[in-house]
C-alpha cells in the first residue's frame, strides 16, 4: 500500500477492568473504504472513537499522516499529547454519529457553517456557499432555515453528514449511522453515503450492520471479534468465501 493515511500499531483499550481492544494493527490507505463489522461489544465503535480522540488508547500508537496522534515530543521525551497537538491532527478526521448530535439551537445551515467559520477560519460568505452546496448534495437544499427538531431522522442524519463533509476531512468515520433510524429512512441515508464513496477522495471507515451495503461500498471488510481483528479481506472473500466458522455464524444472522 502507498503511504497509509492512518496506522494503528498494537492499540489496546480497556475500560475499568474490561479489555475492549486487545491489540489492533491496521493500515488505512488514502481514499480506502473500509467496513467494520462484528458482534456488539467487539470494539468496532471504540476503534473509530480512538481515532476521533473521543477515547484515549490504553497502549499502542495511532498515526495520522505519519504523525503520532496521542503522543508528542516534549524536551526530547514522548509524552501524552496536549490539546493543541490533538487539534492540529484532528482536523483531518470527521465523524458522523449514530444519534446525529446536531446542534438544536442552530438552523441546519448554521450547523454546517459553524465548523468552517470557527475552526477553519473561513469567511462567512465562503462557509455559507460551501454549506449550501453540501446541503443540496444531500438533498436538503430546501430546508436551510429549519431547525433539527423539525426534521425526520433520515434528514437529520443527512444534515450530520453534510456538516462533517463541509470540513473536507481526509478520513470520515461513520458510527452505525443507520442503526437509530426507522427502516424506511435507512435507504436515503445509505444512498448519500454511496454518492460520497463514489467521489473517491476521502478514506471512509463505516461501522455498520448493513451487510449488503458493505458489500457494495467497501474496498475491504474487517471482522472484529473480542477486541481483535479476526478476519479481513475483500467483500467477496469475507462475506462469501470465508472459512471461519465464527464469521459464518455471525453472517448467518443477517441472511434472510
Amino acid at each position: 500500500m502507498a503511504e497509509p493515511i492512518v496506522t494503528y500499531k498494537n492499540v489496546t483499550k480497556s475500560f475499568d477492568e474490561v479489555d475492549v481492544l486487545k491489540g489492533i494493527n491496521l493500515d488505512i490507505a488514502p481514499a480506502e473504504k473500509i467496513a467494520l463489522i462484528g458482534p456488539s461489544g467487539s470494539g468496532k465503535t471504540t476503534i473509530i472513537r480512538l481515532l476521533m480522540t473521543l477515547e484515549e488508547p490504553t497502549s499502542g500508537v495511532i498515526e495520522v499522516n505519519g504523525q503520532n496522534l496521542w503522543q508528542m515530543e516534549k524536551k526530547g521525551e514522548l509524552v501524552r499529547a496536549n490539546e493543541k497537538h490533538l487539534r492540529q491532527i484532528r482536523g483531518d478526521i470527521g465523524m458522523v454519529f449514530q444519534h446525529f448530535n446536531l446542534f438544536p439551537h442552530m438552523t441546519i445551515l448554521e450547523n454546517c457553517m459553524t465548523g468552517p467559520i470557527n475552526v477553519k477560519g473561513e469567511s462567512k460568505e465562503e462557509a455559507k456557499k460551501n454549506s449550501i452546496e453540501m446541503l443540496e448534495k444531500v438533498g436538503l437544499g430546501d430546508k436551510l432555515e429549519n431547525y433539527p427538531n423539525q426534521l425526520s431522522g433520515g434528514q437529520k442524519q443527512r444534515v450530520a453528514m453534510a456538516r462533517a463533509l463541509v470540513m473536507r476531512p481526509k478520513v470520515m468515520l461513520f458510527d452505525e449511522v443507520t442503526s437509530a433510524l426507522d427502516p424506511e429512512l435507512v435507504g436515503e441515508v445509505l444512498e448519500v453515503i454511496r454518492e460520497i464513496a463514489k467521489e473517491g477522495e476521502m478514506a471512509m471507515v463505516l461501522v455498520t450492520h448493513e451487510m449488503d451495503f458493505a458489500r457494495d461500498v467497501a474496498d475491504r471488510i474487517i471482522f472484529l471479534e473480542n477486541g481483535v481483528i479476526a478476519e479481513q479481506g475483500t467483500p467477496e472473500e469475507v462475506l462469501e468465501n470465508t472459512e471461519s466458522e465464527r464469521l459464518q455464524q455471525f453472517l448467518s444472522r443477517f441472511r434472510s
Partner: protein
Amino acid sequence: MIPISQIGEIFSILLQGLNITITILVTSAFFSFLVAFLAGFGRLSKNIFIRKFSGFFVEVFRGTSLIIQLFWFFYALPILFGIDLGSEFWACVIAISMNYGAYMSETVRGSILSVAHGQTEAAIALNMSRFQRMRIVILPQAVRMMLPEFGNYLIQMLKATSLISLVGLADIVYKGQLYTNTNLSSTPTVYLLILVFYFIIALPLIGLTKWAEKQSSKGVASE
C-alpha cells in the same frame, strides 16, 4: 373594618420603602449571578484547588441560613474592614449575593453538565477548541436550561429582601412597622398590605419564570 382611605394612606407609606427594596434586589441579583457563574465554573475547573475552594464556598453558604449570614456580615464588616458608611446596605447585598449565588452556582453547574454528551462529541468531531465548544455549543443550550431556576431564585431573593428591615434598612417592612407602632389597631391590615405589595412586585417575576420555562424546553438537546 379599616376604611379605604386608610388603606391608601398605608400604601403610600409602604411605597416609601420600595426604593431601597428594589435597589437591594437589583444589586444583589447582579452580584449573585456573578457569583453563580464564578462558583459554577469553579466547581467544573480542572484545577483541584479552584474546585475545592469553590466547593467549600458553596457548601458554607448553602449550609447556613441567610439571616445568620446577614447578621454576621452586619457585625463583621465594620470590624474587618472598618467600613461604617452604608455598611448595612453592603452587608445585605453581600449576604444575599453570596447565599443565592451559591445556590445558583449549582444550577449553572448542573445545566452545563446536563447538556448531552453527544453535543460535546460532535463539537470535538468538528475540531472545535475547548473554549469554542463551551461558547458555541454548550453554553447557549445550558443558559436556556438555567433560566427557569434563575427566575425562581429571583423570586426567592425578593422575599429575602424583607430581612433587611431587621438590620435597620428603611424598606417596605420597616416603614410598615413604623406605622403600626403608632396605629396599633391597623397592624393586621398593614402586614396584609405588605404581603400584597410584595406579591404585586413578584407577579412580573413569576410571569418571567413561566415564560423561561416554556423557552427552556425548545432548542435543547438532553438525553
